[in-house]
């Protein structure tokens, strides 16, 4: 299978990224409309869980005494380092607006990253890998990855603190964890290096175009 050109891997990835870009754009539009309509949206009563809910990242452990496997003679297993999404009813405008604002910022960062990546992949599909703009685009992708990860980690810590302070559950303990992905940070640094490789390629191509 060809990697670059028409009907290649690059062409397929460009299609996937186009779909992703439309989905993210629709998400941004929806979040913006819901944010603008915030004062008029009726919120459910706090004691009624049905209706509008918001997903908040939570970190917790489950007591060993609660987990067992009688058929294979395991009596004291435990769930550690669990992370999940706590779905809580949105009962105040402050929670509603802050949740939507964060989602909007994250979607905007994602949109920038996907938009730039799509342009790079389109240039690969058109067999122009060393187009002059590609180095700058890849650098922007690296910044988007870094910014997205830092923001996600900050939000996760914030929501972990909020949940640990306000929520309780039988047999569970909510924790506050610094959940920054080192792999993502390293990936962002690799993308920075990749941008320099594209710059070197563009320079080579430019020099060759000047050769008679």
């Amino acid at each position, binding site marked *: 299978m060809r990697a670059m050109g028409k009907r290649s891997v690059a062409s397929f990835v460009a299609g996937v990224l186009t779909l992703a870009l439309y989905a993210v754009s629709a998400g941004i539009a929806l979040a913006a409309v819901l944010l603008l309509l915030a004062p008029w949206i009726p919120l459910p009563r706090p004691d009624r869980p049905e209706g509008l809910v918001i997903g908040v990242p939570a970190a*917790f452990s489950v007591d060993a005494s609660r987990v067992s496997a009688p058929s294979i003679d395991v009596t004291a297993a435990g769930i550690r380092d669990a992370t999940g999404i706590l779905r809580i009813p949105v009962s105040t405008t402050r929670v509603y607006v802050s949740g939507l604002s964060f989602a909007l910022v994250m979607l905007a960062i994602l949109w920038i990253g996907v938009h730039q990546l799509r342009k790079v992949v389109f240039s690969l599909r058109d067999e122009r890998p060393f187009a002059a703009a590609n180095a700058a685009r890849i650098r922007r992708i690296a910044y988007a990855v870094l910014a997205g990860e830092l923001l996600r980690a900050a939000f996760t810590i914030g929501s972990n603190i909020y949940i640990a302070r306000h929520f309780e559950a039988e047999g569970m303990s909510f924790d506050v964890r610094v959940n920054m992905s080192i792999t993502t940070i390293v990936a962002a640094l690799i993308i920075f290096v990749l941008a320099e490789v594209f710059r070197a390629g563009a320079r080579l191509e430019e020099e060759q175009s000047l050769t008679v």
Partner: protein
Amino acid sequence: MTIALRIDEEDRTVCATGRRFVASFLAMLLAVMWWLMAASFVVLGFLLLDAPNLAEAPSNAALRLPVTFALEASHVAAPLLDVAGAEVRAQGALRMPVVDKPGVLAAGLALTMAMLAVVWYGTSQLRAVLVSVRDHRPFSADNAVRIRRVAYTVIASESLRAGGAFAANFYVAKYFVADGVRFVSTVGTTVGPSIPMLVCGLIILVLAEVFRAGTRLEEDQSLTI
């Protein structure tokens, strides 16, 4: 003369802004990871050989199995905020004692070693690419092949991880029970291969071709008098 001067200036810029530092730092980081993974692989190999004895001896030996589960809404509440019922969908690690279970211990160790071997191979290839970039040879002839191998590694490790996670989730859902916790084992958004990761693998495959194009350009230029 003009071209030579410009390249020299850019090299100085590279040093000043730390671009070379990034490649150098990453190469060093990957070298450390490479050695750590090699050491872990050897330790796991010894543990695998000794699995029958290890499982029989009274010890705190335990496996950590990836699990996906849902917590019942009635168990989670925030009285201060007047929230009576919240639901948690979660992933975590189930710590399972392996005393008298040499088969389970051996299977867990073997799967971890297979994952480690794939990641180790990918890291060694990526490290070789970064070393060549650090040494100002980004379009060296071997890099396209190395990057292609990195792409295959990403796809293989993600498939292996998803397969292992599915097996572990299936095992836990079949045998384990917990009050207020429902273990999930169906393939879906939480149990299954990560689509972004697979797309990343495909993008890296395309990048390998970009490096090949760069190598060709450099070869052409080296032939120009």
